[in-house]
């Protein structure tokens, strides 16, 4: 293990975090609500730890895959801990457990909150809370890689983090890793900017539109209001947010191709077609259920149904209605939607559409081969190209590990806290798939404040596991990973 190299990357990570705190410092200075000093102190502390690490352990250290995994797994923990400082210093979230949970939830783009009354928190801290989405959405480490000296290290970290921008076929659109990451960030920030413009045009204040844009494009779900997007009760904002949640769930590489007018690449993209299909199916069915049941009139059914389905499918977790009051069939549908993430290479988490595509195609072929055509050749094609066997196995493993995490994690939650089975399981789904709100006592009208510290630590870890797409966060529990 190359501890010097790891220290160097961690130092860079802390410097980037400290630098990122300057934006909320600015907001705090404008609003003047007593959160300026805590934010400034935190920024200074973060840089004060990071700078010596970066300077002392100068570059030229090559990192192997193991080091990259260690960085990916512990990097998120370190920055979440440092980022929780402003809340503790200010006192709006006094407990470290709570603040850490809130920040981990922010960086992993989960959006599960322990704040019962969000609106009393000063604007600077609220901005910081939403900004963690902005940083985490594209993968905090990808941002750091841009600041690392050139070399293979960045590439390995990029792989270990399972950052957005990577698709399952491991295709890349530029020759250099750093260029690819820079393009992804440009696309990501442009989407954010575009949404801010749309929201401001609809009459939302700049502060609110920034916070909501951060929470939408990164498909995370923090809102500065207790009632989330429901606070506005405006069809225009709902539809704008639906649009950008949808875009946040599209493979970002496709935006690059769209900008270059390479429509062919987009046309043959298998995952995008399935993504649209899934959305149309679930939105249509939910709308119909709501309308048939008489919950809303048709237009409202379409609006609330679509919003909730898109919000849960893209793992955003914004809410406009308390869906626990909806007909049971619609609720069941939403639980199903929780298990589907959007496209790989987007800002979303969970089990991606591509995993289902691969597993489905493999399953259909395998059944055919086993039961009625033993001579059939098993091949899975994505984007008109055959997929490697390894990718197929990985997809299947990924799906199975997810299922076991949900069942096992649900058991752990029920064991740690006095809760019913639905709450236990859905809290793990909400954390693991980085969604945010779940069902039962962690539903849209509730929050995670009442869960015991042990439960919060477990959920925070679950969020990280989900964000790193399982394997990077799980291999560190293999004893042989540490031996050598």
């Amino acid at each position: 293990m190359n501890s010097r190299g790891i220290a160097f990357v961690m130092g860079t990570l802390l410097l980037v975090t400290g630098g990122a705190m300057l934006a909320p410092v600015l907001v705090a200075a404008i609003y003047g609500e007593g959160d300026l000093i805590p934010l400034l102190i935190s920024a200074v502390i973060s840089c004060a730890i990071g700078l010596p690490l970066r300077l002392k352990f100068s570059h030229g250290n090559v990192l192997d895959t193991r080091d990259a995994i260690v960085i990916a797994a512990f990097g998120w923990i370190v920055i979440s801990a440092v980022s929780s400082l402003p809340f503790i210093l200010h006192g709006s979230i006094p407990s470290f457990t709570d603040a850490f949970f809130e920040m981990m939830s922010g960086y992993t783009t989960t959006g599960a909150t322990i704040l019962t009354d969000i609106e009393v928190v000063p604007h600077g801290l609220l901005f910081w809370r939403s900004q963690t989405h902005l940083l985490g959405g594209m993968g905090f480490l990808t941002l750091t890689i841009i600041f690392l000296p050139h070399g293979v290290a960045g590439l390995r970290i990029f792989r270990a983090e399972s950052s957005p921008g990577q698709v399952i076929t491991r295709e890349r659109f530029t020759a250099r890793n750093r260029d690819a990451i820079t393009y992804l960030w440009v696309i990501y920030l442009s989407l954010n900017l575009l949404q801010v413009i749309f929201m401001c045009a609809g009459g939302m204040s700049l502060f609110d539109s920034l916070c909501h844009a951060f929470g939408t494009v990164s498909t995370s779900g923090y809102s500065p209001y207790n009632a989330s997007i429901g606070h506005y009760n405006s069809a225009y904002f709902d539809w704008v947010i639906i649009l950008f949640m949808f875009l946040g769930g599209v493979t970002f590489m496709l935006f690059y191709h769209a900008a270059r007018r390479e429509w062919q690449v987009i046309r043959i993209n298998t995952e995008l077609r399935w993504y649209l299909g899934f959305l149309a199916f679930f939105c249509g069915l939910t709308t119909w259920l709501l309308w048939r049941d008489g919950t809303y009139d048709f237009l409202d059914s379409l609006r609330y149904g679509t919003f909730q389905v898109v919000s849960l499918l893209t793992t955003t977790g914004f809410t406009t209605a308390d869906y626990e009051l909806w007909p049971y069939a619609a609720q069941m549908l939403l639980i199903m939607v929780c298990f589907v993430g959007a496209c790989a290479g987007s800002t979303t988490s969970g089990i991606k559409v591509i995993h289902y595509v691969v597993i489905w195609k493999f399953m259909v072929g395998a059944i055919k081969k086993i039961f009625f055509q033993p001579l059939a050749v098993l091949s899975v094609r994505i984007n008109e190209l055959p997929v490697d066997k390894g990718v197929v196995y990985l997809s299947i493993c990924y799906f199975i590990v997810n299922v076991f995490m949900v069942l096992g994690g649900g058991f752990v939650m029920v064991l740690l806290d006095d809760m019913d089975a639905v709450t236990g399981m859905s809290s793990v789904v909400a954390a693991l798939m980085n969604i945010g709100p779940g069902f039962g006592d962690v539903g849209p009208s509730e929050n995670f404040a009442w869960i015991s510290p042990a439960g919060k630590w477990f959920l925070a870890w679950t969020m990280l596991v989900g964000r790193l797409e399982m394997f990077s966060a799980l291999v560190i529990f293999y004893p042989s990973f540490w031996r050598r």
Partner: protein
Amino acid sequence: MKKSENILILGLGGVGDYLAKRLSHEGHAITVVEQFPDALNRADGELDARLIRGDAMSFSCWLNADAKKMDYLIAVTDDDAVNIIGSLIADRLGIRQKIARVRSLALWEKDAPLKAEDVKIDLVIRPEELAAREIARLLKLRAGNVVFDIAGGQMQVVGTRIDETSPLAGFKLLELSQKYNHFYFRVVSIARGINTIIPSGDEVLLPGDNAFILARSEDLSKVLDLAREPSDEARHRVMIVGGGTVGSRVAAILEKTFPVRLIERDAARAEELSHQLKNTELLHGDGSEVKTLLEAGLLEMDTIVAATSDNETNIMSCVMAKNVFKDKANEADGKRFRSIALVGREEYLVAASTMGADVVLSKKVLAANEILKYIRRGELLSVAHLHGLEAELVELVVGEGAPITRKPLLRIEGTKGKIIIGGYSRDNGWQTAVGTTHLQPGDKVIAVCTSDHLRDVQSLVLG
């Protein structure tokens, strides 16, 4: 400086992989097209390059690779024809520079109807020919001593093996320079075990090391004496093991000057070669057996060249031959015996040279260096890759305001164990650099570093 080029590489075989690694280390944007997923999977995560799975002979693949934006094409697939057609396609797409590996020698004969220009290739790479010529150069010019001319022949680098009795063994480099202060020389890199070391003053030379020493040309004979390398030999007898492309080419080049014996395992091939090589004594037998080697007259030889298609056989033949010689030192009246091994795998290069092969050559590395030299021309004055090491020797001009001009060499940080400035030239010719040397803009310098630090050298010296 540090101009970044867009480079398209066809084929991720030995040369392709090695080149892609080296070029991406130097900051170029690399795209690789390869047909087989296994090679791609191995490279994924190790290579900062865009990897495209596809057939170089399909047009969609070129489109996908964004070929129109490329500055260089390097066609190094296994197939000569694919490489040639690749260059033609690249030319049609407007890629300025085309480099292609074409193994077949017959295509480039003097009066051949098809010239490289006709198929739009700017640089033809023939790895076997490069290896054969390098072996011949080493044997012809320097009696088997590994010597590189640099700075237009004013300075030279000599490779030598340190054994138990060597006057250099067991000393720190700093002590050596004090002990032999009547002429300057500098140890610029050492192969030890499986590592390449760029030594600092505290490094101790150990028996078994293969060291490269830089000195001014007029001091060369003194260095050779010190290293106990015979500086001149009238007659040189060569035995070649393996009559493949490289072996037969070496024989063809050398047979006019030296007595050459070639051992080939395959009877038919041996017979065929005996017709082609008029002045070479052809033997049929297995060169990996000591008995065969002795029968073939190993003890009368001065140099053995192991050039079979098998890496392990080549290394082992050299090691065995060296040991046989040691045992029978009396019969061989104490003369210096040399071995040259052709080794393809990168991992083996350093190990082979510390195990006993005096010169370790790799077709792949030679080919890659030829290409690198071509791409770098103008940027670095000249480049040599030290045989059997992962070390580079470059000549460059110190830039205005470069970091290296700020302090004397001794006090420049971050270079220890990575980069050595071996020599420099100001007004009156070349000098070996010492710790107190303070470089100025406009000086020419010779730097030695491991391949992955070449970029650091550039930023340090060029500014």
